[in-house]
């Protein structure tokens, strides 16, 4: 301990003395002078002559200057001193060649800035700690099924069983997603609500700012009607009055007592498939829905581990749980399913991880190219500096010292680039995020802060060292005599440096090609998806969500009467061609999922099947083509025979291609006759359509519809001849006129829904495109530099050729060939690398072979064309070489 203390103290003193150098110099001078005098006097006393006494004293001392130097080395921080002088020197040289400096800094700014922005996204989404106390103890239940992992939902009974394995858990909470009609006075609003178990808030460690959380007894049995509001809702509907506590509010027509208000800005991060982007506004006890079909079967589980519990203990406990659950609930936990807990933070972004890793890797490539470019520039400049460097070596500078100085230069460039890059990133992050899909989890956690700054600093240093490495090594291997002998100081040493520079350009082209191939694959996928067609015609289609739970409609008849009234009003609007209503989900969004059994001679097991309830004009309004049979008609009523319309995927998968018409199927134990087949409207563009059954809204069981509506809003769908969004207000008013207490939700065109379903892909595609383009530009700049250098170096040779009768086209071709040699090398290596690396994209491309030869050829051609452009200018310059001047150059 004392030793360390002593060391710190010594260094501190040295640093302090470094700052007050001149005074200390003078003092030591005086000390030495007194030393010499004492010694001389002693010598005189011993009988020496004055001259001999002085000489002997100096000799014994070991040289005044040498002593001073050693003393100084001990006194201050010699490396700091050289670093400072290197720094000053580098600044001076950089200022002298501003063209070079500007290009190098610009290159690095782009490279580092883009890396900073992407890092901010990666850090915010994947690594930033969640804003809860001790967030690393919060875990989410996950299931691993043959290597795939995902969230796992439990039933209320299973949740209770899980709680019995309590050794590692402090709290185990369940929550599920729901929507509520909130009526206050005579205005209705649909809000996103979350039924949660009483200990949910303990798991997250966040408690109501006003009032209290749920008591255990309120979450027992059938549950009591109490509610906790979000701060935002409290402000919006209660003017942030404290009297809101204890008040009754109507949720889905039932009276709930408000017990608490969550703190402002509280976000539980529970991602909702159904209402992506909609914040949670209300929490109610889980017991209220725990025993119901639907919600009670889809409880997501969060747990707070006891302090100090290790992942291995957790895993051991969970393998016990898995064993027990396989025995007790074989239907839900198959022999291959493994239950486990993963950290909440991990689970929130699990789906995005591969995308982000891909982006981060790609932008890393861009930075590498930027490094190569700067190294290239430094080497090019090294050519004209060879003489200066040789001269300094001749004067005694060591190789190490010179390397350090060159490295200092590239470090300064990189730090300047880093500072500008950080500014660039903070200016550009907004537009980057505007491009991002808005339901990206943790979007609000993305911002530039200390950690991002540290990252920028570190990669700046890394970039500086990387790009300075080649020139620095080259400088130490310089052949002094050669250079000093050579007439113009650069004639002979170019060869190995040229090879290095050419190697760098080949590398740049190879990296760019890999990036562009990735971008090409994403673009091809995107085009394919757009061309696939969603199975409906989104042109001119408007949709509006609404909810009937908690309203005055308590039977299927009342509901469909309301439908007809709304449809009649909307149909009478000008430019509306047709209007229908669908429940349990729109195309391209998540919707109702049920099961089906074929009846009759081809009887089958229960099979999964998507389920929708539609009014007669829905198919026409959505533009879903009828393939055979008939659509749903007005004559399909509660009392007529029970029918269903299915899609083509249904026929293919479950009816083995037989004519579907007249077949009978069981949907929820009701036998229905299939009367029509419609085209496949996809739920996701990049997956084949799921078998789907549509039943007439008039024949939908009322209780079932209510459950579907908890998750999926009912939706008005209309087709118009004008811009559909211009009808938004009129449609909302139509519903309001029929019943002001029916809350309406988002008004969106199907085009919007279509593009949103591709948002993540288009984000990725655009970013990869931008990165690829950036990479290509940088590589071209590098190539341009190298070819210009080649032309300059071979001026004399070109002059001779021209003097001997070479035509300009010959010269042009000569130089172009030089450039193409590099490009072909780069393309060849790039193609090989891309063949290996595009395999990483396999999960992100759709209907495109990740080794599609067409894309490889196109990208290679693009690179060659761009590189020809980069070579053009220097090649033209070569053709204009005047042989007289070139030969006189000596």
């Amino acid at each position: 301990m004392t030793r360390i203390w002593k060391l710190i103290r010594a260094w501190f003193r040295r640093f302090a003395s470094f700052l007050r150098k001149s005074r200390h110099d003078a003092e030591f001078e005086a000390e030495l002078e007194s030393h010499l005098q004492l010694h001389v006097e002693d010598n005189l006393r011993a009988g020496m002559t004055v001259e001999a006494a002085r000489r002997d004293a100096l000799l014994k001392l070991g040289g005044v200057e040498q002593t001073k130097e050693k003393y100084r080395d001990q006194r201050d921080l010699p490396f700091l001193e050289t670093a400072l002088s290197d720094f000053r020197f580098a600044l001076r040289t950089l200022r002298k060649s501003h063209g070079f400096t500007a290009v190098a800094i610009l290159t690095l700014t782009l490279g580092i800035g883009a890396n900073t922005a992407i890092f901010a996204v990666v850090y915010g989404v994947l690594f930033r700690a969640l804003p809860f106390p001790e967030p690393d103890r919060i875990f989410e239940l996950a299931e691993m099924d043959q290597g795939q992992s995902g969230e796992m939902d439990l039933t209320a009974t299973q949740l209770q069983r899980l709680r019995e394995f309590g050794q590692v858990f402090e709290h185990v909470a369940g929550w599920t997603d729901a929507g509520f009609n909130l009526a206050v006075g005579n205005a209705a609003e649909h809000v996103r609500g979350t039924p949660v178990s009483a200990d949910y808030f303990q798991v997250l460690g966040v408690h109501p700012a006003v009032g209290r959380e749920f008591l255990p007894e309120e979450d027992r049995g059938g549950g009591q009607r109490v509610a906790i509001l979000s701060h935002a809702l409290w402000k919006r509907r209660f003017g942030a009055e404290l009297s809101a506590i204890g008040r009754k509010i109507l949720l889905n027509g039932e009276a709930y007592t408000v017990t608490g208000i969550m703190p402002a800005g509280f976000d539980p991060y529970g991602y909702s498939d159904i209402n992506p982007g909609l914040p949670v506004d209300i929490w109610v006890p889980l017991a209220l829905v725990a025993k119901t079909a639907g919600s009670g079967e889809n409880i997501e589980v969060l747990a707070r581990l006891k302090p100090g519990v290790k992942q291995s203990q957790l895993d051991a406990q969970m393998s016990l749980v898995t064993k027990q659950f396989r025995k007790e609930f074989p239907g839900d936990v198959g022999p291959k399913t493994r239950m486990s807990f993963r950290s909440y933070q991990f689970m929130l972004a699990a789906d995005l991880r591969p995308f982000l890793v891909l982006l981060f890797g790609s932008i890393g490539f861009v930075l590498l190219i930027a490094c190569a470019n700067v190294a290239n520039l430094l080497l090019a400049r090294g050519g004209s500096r060879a003489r200066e460097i040789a001269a300094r070596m001749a004067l005694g500078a060591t190789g190490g010292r010179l390397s350090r100085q060159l490295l200092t230069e590239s470090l300064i460039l990189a730090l300047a680039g880093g500072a500008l890059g950080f500014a660039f990133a903070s200016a550009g992050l907004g537009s980057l995020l505007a491009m991002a899909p808005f339901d990206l989890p943790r979007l609000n956690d993305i911002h530039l802060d200390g950690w991002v700054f540290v990252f920028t600093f570190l990669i700046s240093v890394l970039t500086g060292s990387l790009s300075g490495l080649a020139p620095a090594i080259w400088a130490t291997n310089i052949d002094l005599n050669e250079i000093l002998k050579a007439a113009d100081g650069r004639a002979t040493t170019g060869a190995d440096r040229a090879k290095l520079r050419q190697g760098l350009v080949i590398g740049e082209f190879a990296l760019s090609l890999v990036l562009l191939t990735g971008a090409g694959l994403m673009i091809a996928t995107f085009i394919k998806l757009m061309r696939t067609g969603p199975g409906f015609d989104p042109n001119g289609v408007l949709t509006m969500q609404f909810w009937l739970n908690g309203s005055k409609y308590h039977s299927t008849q009342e509901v469909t009467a309301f439908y007809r009234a709304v449809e009649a009003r909307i149909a009478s609007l000008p430019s509306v061609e047709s209007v229908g209503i669908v429940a349990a989900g729109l195309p391209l969004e998540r919707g109702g999922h049920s099961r089906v059994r074929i009846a009759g001679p081809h009887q089958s097991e229960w099979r999964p099947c998507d389920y929708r309830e539609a009014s007669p004009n829905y198919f026409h309004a959505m533009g879903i083509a009828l393939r055979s049979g008939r659509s749903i008609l007005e004559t399909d009523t509660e009392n007529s025979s029970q029918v269903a319309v299915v899609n083509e995927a249904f026929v293919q998968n479950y009816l083995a291609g037989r004519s579907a018409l007249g077949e009978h199927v069981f949907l929820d134990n009701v036998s229905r006759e299939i009367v029509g087949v419609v085209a496949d409207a996809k739920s996701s563009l990049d997956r084949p359509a799921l078998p789907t059954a549509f039943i007439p809204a008039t024949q939908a069981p009322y209780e079932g519809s209510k459950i579907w509506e908890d998750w999926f809003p009912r939706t008005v769908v209309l087709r118009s001849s004008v811009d559909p969004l211009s009808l938004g207000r009129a449609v909302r008013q139509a519903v309001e006129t029929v019943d002001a207490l029916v809350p309406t939700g988002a008004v969106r065109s199907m085009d919007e829904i279509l593009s949103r379903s591709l948002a993540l892909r288009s984000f990725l595609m655009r970013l990869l495109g931008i990165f690829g383009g950036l990479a290509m530009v940088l590589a071209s700049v590098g190539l341009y530099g190298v070819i210009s250098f080649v032309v300059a170096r071979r001026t004399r040779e070109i002059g001779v050729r021209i003097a001997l009768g070479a035509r300009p086209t010959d010269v042009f071709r000569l130089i172009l060939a030089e450039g193409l040699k590099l490009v072909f090398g780069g393309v060849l290596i790039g193609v090989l690398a891309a063949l290996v690396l595009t395999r990483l994209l396999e999960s992100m491309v759709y209907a495109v072979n990740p080794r599609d030869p067409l894309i490889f050829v196109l990208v290679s051609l693009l690179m060659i064309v761009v590189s020809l452009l980069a070579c053009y200018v220097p090649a033209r310059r070569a053709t204009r070489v005047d042989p007289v001047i070139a030969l006189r150059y000596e």
Partner: protein
Amino acid sequence: MSHKANVWQGTLALMILKTLETLGPLHGYGIARRIEQTSGGVLSLNYGTVYPALLKLEQEGTIESEWGVSDNHRRAKYYQLTRAGRKQLEREARDWQQAQAILAKFLSAEPST
């Protein structure tokens, strides 16, 4: 710097501390001279090397310095031990003697037959 030189540096520091303990406050020239004399001329020492060593000791806080006047009325910088310096000297002297004793035993061992 070679390993040997480091050892030399370490012993030089110890010699300086011991000199200051024996003779009390002293200037750099006096210290260098004393070390040379004590070694009986076996050690040949560049007097200049004591200064970085003195500085190092001062930075570590084992000695302190002050300008004073010498016997023959010359201005000179005088060094003297601090309390920490005394302790360090004690400790290092002991370590050194121990090491020496062990090595001496080791070297005087008879070859076994």
